[in-house]
């Protein structure tokens, strides 16, 4: 347990829609996140990948305690996060920080850069003004910003620089875990690499653990040691990034990675074309969530939720095809 900084067990978020008394409608339940498990080793990067509405952002919100889970547990250093209040909560807050996608909405336009960066520090620790100033200058240097810019406002910076400010703010408390929610999706191609490099350097320098959330498979493949693939609120496949990128086992992961754009005109691979649309999380399919679009769908898929099958390399996928194979081989 100790080598995992964060682990999540059966984490669930259901949004219950109000029912109407007069119309006698049944209350709808949006199953945004539906029982996911994963663990993040200390100092590693876990990528949470999936498409819009798969529940990856809701997961991030629960980890950051911006939303309360409907069920399940979040363990940080083996201690349950959900129950934390007072100094325990402060402890968690100082250890877990976040960087969001939009560098424009992440920074309060009415605050100066030094106040933005110092805010987590002031909110959590008793520190003298001088120390705050030093800490801000130091962390600005670390992320590659000129400390002389501390009194400027966010609008005086470009998108890439704003993202550096956001990272500096997240870093000022010296947290151990950072939740990176689409940290480079809003940036231009030429700036993207700068920020990814910065994040990798910071990880080496401070021993940070990252939970990286992205729909961008290239970014995920670049950054992550482990990948968890989500579809309709569930993790369908999880394991070492190297293996999942090279040899995805779940039909959805296969389709997803086959949709990745080629790096070369010759690289246009055989794409797996998915039929239909992502079903509504209000009324997800029975059995396997992916069965309505799966090219290998079988009768059992509609009836039984596929169990997780583990391969020797640690790759795990929830698909009846795999459980059949493992049943055959054993």
């Amino acid at each position, binding site marked *: 347990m100790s080598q995992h900084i964060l682990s999540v067990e059966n984490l669930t978020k259901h949004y219950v829609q109000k029912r109407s008394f007069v119309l006698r409608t049944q209350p709808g339940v949006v199953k945004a996140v539906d029982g996911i498990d994963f663990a993040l080793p200390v100092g590693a990067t876990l990528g949470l990948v999936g498409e819009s509405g798969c529940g990856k952002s809701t997961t991030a919100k629960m980890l950051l305690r911006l939303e309360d889970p409907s069920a399940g547990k979040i363990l940080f250093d083996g201690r349950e996060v959900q129950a934390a209040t007072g100094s325990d909560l*402060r402890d968690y807050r*100082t250890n877990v*920080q976040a960087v969001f996608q939009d560098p424009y*909405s992440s920074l309060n336009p009415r605050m100066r850069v030094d106040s933005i960066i110092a805010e987590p520090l002031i909110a959590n620790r008793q520190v003298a003004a001088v120390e705050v100033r030093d800490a801000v200058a130091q962390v600005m240097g670390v992320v590659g910003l000129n400390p002389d810019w501390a009194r400027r406002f966010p609008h005086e910076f470009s998108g890439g620089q704003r993202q550096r400010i*956001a990272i500096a703010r997240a870093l000022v408390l010296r947290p151990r875990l950072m939740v990176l929610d689409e940290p480079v999706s809003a940036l231009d191609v030429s700036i993207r690499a700068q920020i990814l490099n910065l994040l990798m350097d910071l990880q080496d320098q401070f021993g940070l653990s990252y939970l990286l959330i992205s729909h961008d498979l290239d970014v995920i493949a670049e950054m992550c040691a482990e990948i968890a693939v989500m579809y309709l609120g569930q993790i369908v496949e999880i394991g070492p990034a190297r293996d999942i990128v090279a040899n995805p086992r779940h039909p959805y992961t296969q389709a997803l990675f086959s949709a990745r754009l080629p790096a070369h005109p010759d690289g246009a691979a055989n794409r797996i074309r998915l039929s239909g649309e992502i079903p509504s999380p209000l009324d997800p399919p029975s059995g396997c969530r992916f069965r309505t679009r799966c090219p290998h769908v079988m009768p059992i898929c509609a009836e039984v939720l596929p169990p997780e099958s583990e391969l020797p390399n640690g790759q795990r996928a929830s698909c009846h095809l795999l459980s059949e194979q493992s049943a055959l081989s054993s």
Partner: protein
Amino acid sequence: MTWQSFRRFPWIPVLLLAPVVICGLAGPLFYPHDPTVVNLLAPRKPPAWLPGGDPSFLLGTDHFGRDLLSRLIEGARVTLMVAVLGVVVAAVIGISAGMVAGYFGGWIDNLVMRIVDVKMSIPTILLTILIGSAFGGGLVTIIASIIFVFWADYARVIRGETLSLRERGYVALAKVANCSSFTILLRHILPNLFATCMVLFSLQLGRALIVEAAITFIGLGIQPPASAWGLLIAEGRNYLATAWWIPTFAGLAITMTVLGTNLLGDWLRDALDPKLRQL
């Protein structure tokens, strides 16, 4: 000042409002005559440039022979004081209620919005008549009415604005940084409402002036012998055929001031946040 910023300066609203504000703050310095001195020998003297006019009474006199210009200058103070006081209190109540409703949602939001609905369903003047019937007329009625009428507009607009600000990344990050709700409202929501508040304040001030004059006009507001612009118009109504200048100049004073605040509001909206078109 560069030519660009010179051109962008809101000259028209400032020129319209400056004399009013100066009269409101330092009116007594400019009285050509004492506005309260009755001169029964010179009632309803026309403005100076008309036949029968007296050059020392530039805009003429009222039915008691009081100098109209002096009464207008004195009226500026009362009129402005009431409107500004009412709108400021309304703004404080409305902004707080709107922020709390928008940020916390739930039953607080429901309660505030239902009260706003109720207010919106009673036309302004009728609401003031109702308040007048409860409190009797006078200054209290006017100020209570202005607060009652205008807080709800603030609450409605600020709530909507807060609902969208609440979803900004920096608010979520402030929570992640362990800031309290109070800190978030004060440091992250309120400063970003500044543009909206300024625009609304400017527009409301003009509307409050009109409401104030209307209440006074129907006899529930400021009572004689005070000087207020609405009162001058109400008094002048009886002399429309014989002393048209009394209501005309008082009405012009109101129109000029309201036009000034409206134009200033428009200018602020364009300058601070062009997206606020719907206000």
